[in-house]
């Protein structure tokens, strides 16, 4: 039995000797060894961000190919099968491999810095989440590049996805890839939840965390609840396809509708999971450029949670046309209309923040502020689809395509690029170029609206979605040409962003600790932050530790320079869930190869399942089991066992 060691951490201030003690404890080894073993949330966060942007670029190129095919009526640049794989892969890429991981990346990088902690609660799990994301992304794309990409949309309805109608490996790649990716999402969500509740700096009670934390926390809770539904659905599909089960086959007593319920019970909360953290970025970033605190912090935080609660009750609005009883539809219609209200709270909070503040125009500000308008446009078109009879006309036309792009580009891409302008200096120590930033912003903004605003009209004129070509009914051709031109302009805008990032990495102006004079803890660390983030653990007394004394009133002051030293080992502090009272010293694991090995083993296992190569399944499974053994082997450093005696 392990004896608890009671000790009160020393409190002190940072010094050269103190930093010299911390650095070797936290530093990642240089070279390949460090690359495969690091558990530093900052490195993992940046990997997520870079990987997600690569997928954004891939998905964008897929979109441009489709826009060439659709630029005019009756074109044949792409075959129907190529088009179908492109639009399915585009959806899969943007929704699963870009929109969610990019937010995980920012949150992974930022959370411990925002929370005044030295790492995420489970650093190795964090590394595992990234490696599995990368592996499952490569797995899914291996299907696409070999001509076996998903070809039934990201929503993947049965029976078209079953083997009778879809005999290739396309759907097996997609089904197994999604089950694989689900592991990454699940471990990431669990990690965020525990991190939010257990590793906040002393004094950072739950009503003092940045809204980004509320957003990602809410999304993570939702993901833990709904991801099992979609993983199950894809698993059952794979069983139907490969082992002759009949979960979805009506001839064997199965139900095509089962797929739709399982998918959308997951799918709609997922939409909120990929916008709420991005809305959090705006809620935290915008006030900095308005030189005042966010209007209605508590209401915004509550709205974040309320949106998700409503979000669990709206999935059937994807299924209004499936013949469900009208009374049932009315409830989902009500929930879908009511969900506008929490969004309205947030929108008015943002507008009031600008109105009652003193706005300073920066590129980040432009992305955040313009997002408000794009959010509203995407919101009201969503409100239109919430009305059952109206939706029965709107659904599956280009109106919905316009709607969902306002939501996903407007509420995800715009805030994310804004967040990149905002936090890039923290991550790299250099500012992105503001002048190029303006070109970047205006090209994206104009291109996006040129592409997608007229698309509402295309939809109202009846053009159906997911068609590889179309006849020129009353101007569809012109509208589609405008959209195609706009999409290329938008793509140039995104390219300018990448150019700015690459140029500024070397040549950007030096940022210093806090280039925007922002209020939260991450800006109290050097840019980029040292591996241990905080030399001493700060104690927090307000929502705006770095603005204290400037907001009037005489509240208690946070202590940033003096705090727990925690330099006996790789340590950070654990605090209570609501009030963040320190209650334990957390021993953090050292860098480890186990997460990479586990991801590698699972990759072998999934490839084996795909090819029905049971040898590969066995070897992959054995590697995975070995990795878990290494991972869980009790270590003295983590105080999981007594040091050996004598």
């Amino acid at each position, binding site marked *: 039995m392990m004896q608890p060691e009671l000790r009160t951490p020393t409190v002190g201030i940072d010094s050269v000797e103190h930093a010299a003690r911390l650095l070797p404890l936290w530093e990642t080894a240089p070279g390949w060894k460090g690359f495969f073993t690091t558990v530093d949330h900052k490195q993992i966060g940046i990997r997520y961000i870079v990987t997600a942007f690569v997928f954004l670029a891939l998905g964008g190129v897929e979109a441009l190919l489709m826009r060439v095919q659709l630029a005019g009526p009756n074109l044949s640049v792409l075959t*129907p099968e190529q088009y179908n794989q492109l639009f399915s892969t585009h959806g899969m890429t943007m929704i699963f491999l870009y929109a969610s991981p990019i937010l995980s990346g920012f949150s992974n990088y930022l959370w411990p810095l925002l929370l005044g902690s030295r790492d995420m609660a489970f650093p190795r799990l964090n590394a595992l989440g990234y490696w599995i994301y990368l592996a499952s992304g490569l797995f899914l794309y291996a299907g696409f590049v070999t001509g076996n990409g998903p070809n039934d949309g990201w929503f993947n309805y049965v*029976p078209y996805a079953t083997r009778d109608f879809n005999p290739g490996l396309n759907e097996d790649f997609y089904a197994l890839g999604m089950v694989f990716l689900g592991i990454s999402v699940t471990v990431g969500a669990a990690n965020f939840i525990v991190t939010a509740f257990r590793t906040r700096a002393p004094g950072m009670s739950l009503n003092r965390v940045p809204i980004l934390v509320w957003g990602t926390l809410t999304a993570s809770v939702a993901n833990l609840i709904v991801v099992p539904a979609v993983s199950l659905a894809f698993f059952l599909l794979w069983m139907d396809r490969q082992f002759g089960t009949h979960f979805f086959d009506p001839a064997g007593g199965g139900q095509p509708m089962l797929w739709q319920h399982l998918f959308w019970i997951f799918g709609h909360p997922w939409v909120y999971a990929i916008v709420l953290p991005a809305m959090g970025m705006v809620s935290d970033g915008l006030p900095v450029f308005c030189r005042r605190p966010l209007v209605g912090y508590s209401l915004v935080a509550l709205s974040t949670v309320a949106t998700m609660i409503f979000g669990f009750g709206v999935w059937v609005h994807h299924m209004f046309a499936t013949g469900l009883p009208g009374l049932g*539809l009315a409830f989902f219609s009500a929930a879908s209309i009511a969900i506008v209200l929490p969004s309205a709270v947030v929108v008015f909070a943002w*507008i009031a923040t600008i109105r009652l503040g003193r706005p300073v125009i920066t590129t980040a500000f432009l992305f955040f502020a313009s997002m408000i308008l794009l959010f509203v446009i995407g919101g009201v078109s969503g409100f239109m689809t919430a009305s059952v009879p109206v939706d029965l006309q709107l659904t599956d036309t280009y109106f919905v395509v316009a709607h969902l792009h306002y939501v996903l580009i407007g509420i995800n891409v715009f805030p994310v690029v804004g967040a990149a302008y905002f936090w890039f200096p923290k991550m790299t120590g250099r500012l992105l170029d503001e002048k190029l930033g303006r070109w970047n912003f205006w090209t994206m903004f104009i291109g996006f609206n040129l592409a997608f605003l007229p698309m509402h009209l295309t939809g109202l004129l009846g053009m159906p979605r997911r068609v590889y070509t179309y006849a020129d*009914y009353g101007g569809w051709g012109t509208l589609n040409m405008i959209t195609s031109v706009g999409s290329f302009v938008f793509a140039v805008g995104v390219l300018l962003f990448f150019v700015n990032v690459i140029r500024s990495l070397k040549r950007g102006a030096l940022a210093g600790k806090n280039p925007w004079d922002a209020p939260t803890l991450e800006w109290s660390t050097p840019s980029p932050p040292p591996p241990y983030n905080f030399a001493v653990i700060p104690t927090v007394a307000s929502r705006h530790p770095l603005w204290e004394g400037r907001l009037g009133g005489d509240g208690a002051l946070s202590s940033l320079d003096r705090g727990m030293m925690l330099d006996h080992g790789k340590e950070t502090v654990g605090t209570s869930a609501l009030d963040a009272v320190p209650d334990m010293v957390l021993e953090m694991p050292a860098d480890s190869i186990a997460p990479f090995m586990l991801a590698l083993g699972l990759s072998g296992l999934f490839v084996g399942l795909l090819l029905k190569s049971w040898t590969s399944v066995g070897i992959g499974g054995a590697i995975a089991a070995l990795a878990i053994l290494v991972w869980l082997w009790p270590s003295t450093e983590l105080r999981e066992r007594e040091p050996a005696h004598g």
Partner: protein
Amino acid sequence: MTGWPLNYLSSAGLRAREVVPLTWYMLVVSIVVCLVIAALLWAAVRRARPEDRSVNIRDIPIERGSSGIRWISVGLLASAAPLAVAFVWTLLTLSATAGPPSQPGLVLDVTGRQWWWQVQYSASNPSEVFQTANEIHIPVGVPVLVRLHGGDVIHSFWVPQLTGKTDTIPGQTNLSWIQADRPGRYLGQCTEFCGFQHARMQFEVVAESQEDFDRWVSLQRQAAAAPATQEQTRGLSLVEYRCGLCHKVRGTNAGAISAPDLTHLMSRRTLAAGTLVNDPANLMGWIQDPQYIKPGSLMPNQYLSAQQLSDAVAYLETLK
């Protein structure tokens, strides 16, 4: 059919007409909301004075300012009112469009198939039952109940001028209904993704007077006429031997049912579910090379000789 045959901001039938005012209401509310928000945002942002743009952000002091909660409460109330109206109106419209106002005068069975529509007109006398494809004739002013079946994968039945969408799902029967206000041809389109040729899966609803409709029905009930010329006779045996593996021509040995019924092929306006106008030249092209015209279509290329092709078309042209 000119203009925007698939638009749903206008209507030509009772069920669609009930929805149009609600659609306009929601559209106008949405546009007004966007304009108001854009104006508020613009007014708020333009307060950034030009001299602030070059200034160091640190030089602008942080101020707590007023709480701004009034903005949220006013905004919330202003949003709630149109939402409440939308919801009540939605329920009323939902109820008004749920079923036809009176007993349906006609019941049809429509089956979505990759990538065409099978239409069956039932009758109490089995010899009067007939099937057609991609063209639905209905009498004007009569409520028509449409029973929707999934033939293979999920499709969706949509005639925007007459009704919103209802999916055709294997293993269940869904109901839709239509009632045309005036004679005309109304375009329908599959709107659930269903594979290669989802794009080319259209149909037409032909609304006509009761007399015209009755005439059409009695014509459709007849079996195919016997061939009159040598060419047509050769054509018939070719059709029975080649086309009859999938298609049916009532009154001949072509009796399969996995593709459109051809008994009155030439009475239909289009070929291949709205892909081509039905004329002899297009028919020849379609028979010879459907995979070029509609790639992935379940109809294989036929590779007929010139003689065979002209024989086949000569016979098919008699199927009026």
